[in-house]
């Protein structure tokens, strides 16, 4: 039996006294695109940071294509094909936007792929085009609005041409129309193909999002976290009807 694409097994993580992630296990197929939802402080972002290696788990295992990757450095995880965005956006403020993306294009993974594209700038430009902010390529990142910073985050992640993409609130701060556009781009990315000089592997995705309506349009499966535990896992239509989910989202009273 072949091992699953991404397998998370009994993951635990605590900060001081608080257990942010407790005994989380799930697996993800190569073609899957899942949503990760839950109230604030449920541990969604922590889970993503554990997978990308920015945080170290206390116990448990993360296996990518059958290989254990927890304990690896962040950059080596990225070069194996997993990349994530930051929820609280961490642009290089005093660099132009294009340079922000060029850093990702300069990673060994991105450099190895697409031998014929030696121009990093061109590739970075296409990543910006994909995220819809290519017209601002020369502005300093510090001048961007929240929504544009979100798109910059996405552009930076996409530029490494990942096989597993972890998006932390990609629609945050976007207007409804922009959200639609971004949703479509994400879907297209998932299908794979070319975006100019940028090549998409058709990455598997985990998307954290509060805008459920948009999320449900693009994902086939949703995992709900609350207090660091998985309380529901299934197709969107089922999950939103789940009593536990409604309670955790709107609190004890229900509607």
């Amino acid at each position: 039996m072949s091992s699953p694409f991404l397998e998370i097994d009994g993951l635990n993580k605590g900060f001081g006294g608080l257990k942010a992630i407790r005994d989380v296990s799930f697996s993800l197929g190569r073609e899957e695109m899942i949503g990760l939802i839950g109230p604030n402080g449920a541990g969604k972002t922590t889970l993503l940071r554990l997978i990308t290696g920015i945080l170290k788990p206390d116990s448990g295992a993360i296996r990518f294509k059958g290989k254990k990757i927890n304990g690896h450095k962040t950059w080596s995880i990225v070069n194996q094909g997993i990349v994530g965005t930051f929820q609280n956006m961490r642009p290089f403020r005093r660099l132009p936007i294009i340079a922000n993306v060029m850093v990702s294009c300069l990673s060994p993974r991105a450099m190895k792929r697409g031998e014929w594209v030696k121009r990093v700038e061109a590739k970075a430009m296409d990543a910006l085009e994909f995220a819809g902010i290519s017209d601002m390529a020369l502005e300093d990142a510090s001048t961007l609005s929240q929504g544009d910073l979100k798109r910059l985050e996405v552009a930076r992640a996409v530029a490494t041409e990942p096989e597993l993409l972890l998006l932390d609130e990609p629609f945050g701060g976007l207007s409804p129309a922009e959200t639609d556009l971004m949703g479509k781009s994400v879907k297209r990315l998932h299908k794979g193909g070319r975006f100019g000089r940028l090549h998409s592997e058709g990455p598997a995705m985990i998307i954290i999002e509060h805008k459920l309506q948009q999320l449900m349009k693009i994902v086939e499966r949703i995992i709900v976290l609350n207090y660091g535990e998985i309380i529901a896992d299934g197709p969107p239509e089922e999950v939103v009807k789940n009593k536990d989910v409604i309670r955790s989202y709107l609190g004890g009273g229900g509607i």
Partner: protein
Amino acid sequence: MLLDIIISTLINGSVYALLAIGFSLIFGVARIVNIAHTAFYMIAAYCIYFITNSLNLHPLLGMLTAIVLVTLIGLISYKFFIDPIREHEAAVLIATIALAMILQEVMLLIFTGDFLSVPSLIKGYMEFFGVRIAFQQLLTIGVALVILAAVWVLLRKTRLGLAIRSTANDREVANLMGMNVAQVAMMTMGVSVALAAFTGAVVVPLTILNPHMWMHPLIMMMAVVVLGGLGSIKGSFVGAYILGMAESLVVFLIPMGSFLKGSVALSIMILVLLIRPEGLFGVAFEEER
């Protein structure tokens, strides 16, 4: 020998502790790396020399004047040269370096580069297991410990101390508790410089005055602060005596030791930091890798 080591550990350690705590205070409250800190210590020492030798006044009076005067100089230079560029870290850094150079050069102009000394406050010595211990040494250790205790009381028991500690912990929340953060920074600078001046006053009879005398204590003070953990008063205290002892041991036990004392102490600091990057008593936060 053992007694010599203990005495010199106590003296060096106390001096470093006093300097390091002053340096830590202003770093903690205003994030200023004040390179000129030990330069204030130096001018306090010169002040005392001037008052006792040139004006022939009592050393105690000299000490008091020195402390007041140096604190004033410190506050003025903070107000005019450091505060306006506070938010530019690199600029603040070389502003303090330039300040230290200015103080050094002014002292060179007034007193020349000659080695000068100040007579002891009390003469005489006692013998203890065949080792001579000057009363001045004991006095210095005693006064230094008293001042350290006074600083502790200031920080723990007074309103200003509360404000200083709160501001060092979290500037914004301190603001929310009704503390005027800018004013607290100013007062902390005053306390910090006064401590440097006190230190100068305490050790002046034991050292030789020279306009370059601020360099070695500066380096040791910084090593102490980093070793103990930035912003930790307890760390500065413990770190000071550790490095003070390391210096004394090297000086007394190794040939050519007086050349190597700084090297050994600093190597200890680097080794500790490689094992504990946040220093001995620093606070480590969840590491992002």
